């Protein structure tokens, strides 16, 4: 299926299948949602590292990327104009929580950044804002995985590994953005340690991905089908998985990371590695969404 195709036709045809894939959150305008998840996660990760390294430009970049992610989220909605209503149910809905986190992060983060500009960041207010922005950031990193993980309808998503995976990828995305920024000459900070952290996160992500897939391939029929969508040669997301997630997202970053550890790598190469891992980051979201298969509606009712 072409990536931008209106999912209507396929959605309808799915109705006669036993193992029905979800499409609303991946096809057509569903891509905006994935983009939103990707951008907000990576943006939040950028905040983390920018605070850690004290990178003002990184903070700005982070806010920008998260804001962009927020806009992408809104573009996905059927009724854009009513988007504000999403904040109403934080006591139960992870989407509400996510949007509130994003709002908190953007407001406090922007305020923090302004204070930082005028040099008043070290006061109590600065501390509170920093804390709140970190809370928002954590919320952003956390919520996506939980949005998926609470859906018992889609067993492939219904695992605590998914939040862990998305946090890892968010953090890694942050590092990758900073690497890209550095390569483009933004930030001006020595990032060699960042690359090390990033390598560490990439390797853990890889381990998480493997644990996740292994776990899923040994559980129910729906999640097995999900795994085969990624790993199977004719799987609906196998190209995205092997090229995007594995090659660009894991092999290249790990390889180059190891290489940079033992040799010298030019900043622009690191930048390219950053881009590569960012693409991988997006494709993780894409693949997880694409491989979402609902629980089959049969089984417990023998025909006679």
């Amino acid at each position, binding site marked *: 299926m072409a990536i931008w195709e*209106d999912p*209507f036709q396929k*959605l*309808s045809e799915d*109705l*006669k299948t*036993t193992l*029905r894939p*979800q499409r*609303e*959150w991946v096809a*057509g*305008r569903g891509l905006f949602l994935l983009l939103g998840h990707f951008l907000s996660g990576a943006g939040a990760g950028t905040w983390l590292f920018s605070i850690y390294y004290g990178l003002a430009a990184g903070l700005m970049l982070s806010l920008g990327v998260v804001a962009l992610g927020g806009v992408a989220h809104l573009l*996905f*909605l*059927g*009724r854009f104009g*009513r*988007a504000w*209503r*999403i*904040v*109403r*149910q934080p006591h*139960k*809905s*992870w*989407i*509400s929580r996510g*949007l509130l986190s994003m709002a908190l992060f953007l407001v406090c983060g922007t305020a923090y950044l302004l204070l930082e500009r005028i040099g008043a960041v070290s006061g109590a207010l600065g501390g509170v804002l920093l804390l709140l922005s970190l809370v928002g950031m954590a919320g952003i990193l956390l919520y996506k995985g939980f*949005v*998926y993980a*609470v*859906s*018992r*309808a*889609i067993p492939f*998503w219904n695992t605590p590994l998914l939040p862990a995976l998305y946090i890892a990828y968010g953090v890694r995305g942050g590092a990758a953005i900073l690497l890209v920024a550095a390569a483009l000459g933004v930030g001006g900070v020595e990032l060699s340690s960042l690359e090390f952290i990033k390598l560490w996160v990439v390797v853990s992500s890889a381990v998480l991905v493997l644990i996740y897939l292994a776990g899923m391939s040994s559980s129910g029929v729906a999640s097995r089908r999900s795994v085969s969508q990624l790993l199977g040669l004719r799987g609906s997301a196998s190209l995205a998985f092997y090229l995007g997630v594995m090659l660009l997202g894991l092999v290249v970053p790990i390889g180059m990371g190891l290489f940079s550890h033992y040799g010298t790598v030019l900043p622009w190469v690191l930048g390219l590695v950053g881009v590569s891992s960012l693409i991988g980051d997006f494709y993780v979201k894409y693949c997880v969404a694409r491989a*979402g298969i*609902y*629980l089959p*509606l*049969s089984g*417990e*009712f*023998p*025909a*006679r």
Partner: protein
Amino acid sequence: MRYVMVIDLKRCIGCYGCQIACKSENATPPGVFWARVLKQEAGKFPNVRRSSLPLLCMHCQDPACQQVCPTGATTKSDNGIVEVDSDECVGCRYCMMACPYGARYFNAKERSYFGQGLNEYEKVGYPNHPTGVVGKCDFCRHRLEKKLEPACVANCMARARYFGDVDDPNSEVSHLIREKRGQQLHPELGTDPSVYYLPA
């Protein structure tokens, strides 16, 4: 008071009458089926079984869709009916990810069946289906208000569907569920559906 529907799979003949009864009652747009039938095949020739599973919103007592709805557009009434307020829905489709029964549809844009504008019938029916929001079966609430059964129940040619109050231990549905071992779909999910199936 809790409305439930009981579907007797022994009686059901898999004719798709419920699907069309629902379509014509609710004027749902193309590709949207508040009621539908899932046909499946199992076994090897000549020991083959085909089965028909009529589906609709299960009106769960612990609805996963309501749990995840970020706006509160999905609510559960005192009579057990789970409804979507299309004025409140923002069309995030989270409920569709959460519903294990495939009962929900997102009405992306206005579509006519014949593809050249709405015909006379669609002009009357489609304003009930705003675009950009999620919709689903409401047990034909408008019919219940007139003391009529839901359209799929009232029309079923095999008289395979029963509708009533399960809180009343003497109702027909209560009897059927008790005596004919009514089962819910995916009870392990803890959603407690209000649609029960009697074994084929």
